[in-house]
């Protein structure tokens, strides 16, 4: 951790701030959420990395999609993602968001979450252990340092693609588009 290198803080305080204060939306998607309470409580303390859970997506900048995604959950995930302020980072947790995982031939789950929401990184496993979450957080720091964690920029620039995918699987969406779609 380069949290105590004052020179780096003075050069780019914004990036260092985003790295060492990742506030996670406490959104309990699927089976992966069972791994999150041990991470944020006393046994594997996530607060020493600066990661705390917050209750409102408006206050958060990290979104972990923990487990399988059904159609109903996809609506809530899209709505929560659009409520978050920029810059925001998403992490896919478990193998279900990557390629469908255990539910690869189900009629009700989403197999490739990347088509509907931009994902910055994946954590493989059918539920990953808490140590894997910490490795993911430190890897996310490296990505933020190099400027490669740009999911939100991709969402803004390719919004027509994402919105069309969302409408194809969910039908007509009730909320207006986040960015202007002509």
């Amino acid at each position, binding site marked *: 951790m380069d949290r105590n290198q004052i020179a780096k803080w003075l050069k780019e305080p914004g990036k260092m*701030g985003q790295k060492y*204060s990742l506030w996670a939306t406490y959104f309990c998607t699927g089976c992966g959420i069972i791994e999150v309470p041990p991470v944020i*409580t006393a046994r594997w*303390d996530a*607060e020493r990395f600066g990661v705390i859970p917050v*209750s409102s997506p*408006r*206050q958060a900048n990290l979104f972990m999609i923990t487990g399988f995604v059904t159609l109903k959950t996809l609506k809530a995930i899209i709505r929560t993602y659009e409520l978050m*302020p920029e810059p925001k980072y998403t992490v896919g947790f478990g193998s279900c968001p990557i390629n469908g995982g255990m539910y690869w031939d189900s009629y009700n789950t989403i197999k490739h979450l990347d088509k509907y929401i931009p994902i910055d990184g994946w954590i493989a496993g059918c539920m990953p252990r808490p140590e894997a979450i910490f490795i993911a957080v430190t890897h996310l720091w490296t990505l933020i340092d190099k400027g490669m964690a740009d999911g939100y920029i991709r969402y803004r620039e390719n919004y027509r693609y994402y919105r069309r995918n969302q409408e194809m699987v969910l039908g007509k969406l009730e909320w207006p588009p986040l960015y202007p779609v002509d």
Partner: protein
Amino acid sequence: MWVKAVEIIVSPILAFVIGLFFMGLARKITARIHWRYGPPITQPLIDVIKLFTQRSVSHGLLFDMGVILSLAGSIALVLFIPFGGICPLESSGGLLVILYLMLLIPLGLALSGGEGANPNISIGISRKLMLSLGYEVPFLLAVLAIMTHYHTISAVDVVRAQEGFRWALFSWPLVLPGLAYLMILPAMLGLRPFEVVQAPQEIASGPMVEYGGKYLALVQIEHALAVFVTIALFVDLFLGGASNPFFFFLKMCVIFLLGMFVNAVFPRFRIEQAVRFLWRWPTALAFVGLVFTLLAR
């Protein structure tokens, strides 16, 4: 004249630094009581820096102005409280002005939250105002006991009258109001067991549910200043202030640690349980203390 100007500029910055230090210390101590490591003490500063780089949403003009009004009220309030020998604006109305400027802080947040049209905000604000009514009853009785005992409305005079270890907390008419004030200190700071206003698990952090980015940063700064103001007021009125800022800071640390130990282990009251508690034991103690103060004359 120049000393006064330097005092006016330095006071809010010092209050902000101390408040932020206390917030970091709070998280560290809570973590250690929970047998984990906890974030570094500078974590609230990192949070504020991160929040300023986020682009949040706004619900209207009053949404912005309310937060600005609340923070302006707390910065102006800091200038009126004697801080170990530094008191920039002493002769402008004393304790009454302090008590009334403390009204601006929840009012600004309430007005701003009202414009963010979210029911969680409305529930949070109504809980905040009800809790304020709850703790104001014993708080006013305790402050009135002080004002009656020293027969003045100026905070600087109260500090001066307690010089030389004649602290108000150790004089027999005022020990009961002092204990009542200690009991309501977690309610005024928004710590558990009175954390019902923010209640992240119940109402999605209440009034702060629609704040992101710079609004949340300003609210964090305002919370730091509010912690400073509340504890400084207690140290001034009941522990005799101090002759220089360093001893004042030590006294504030002791009081803050007491509140933090309570916060780390308690769950949360419901709002009517909280108000009922505040109107029962602290009010009784402060009332009896006020009667003693009247009889002592």
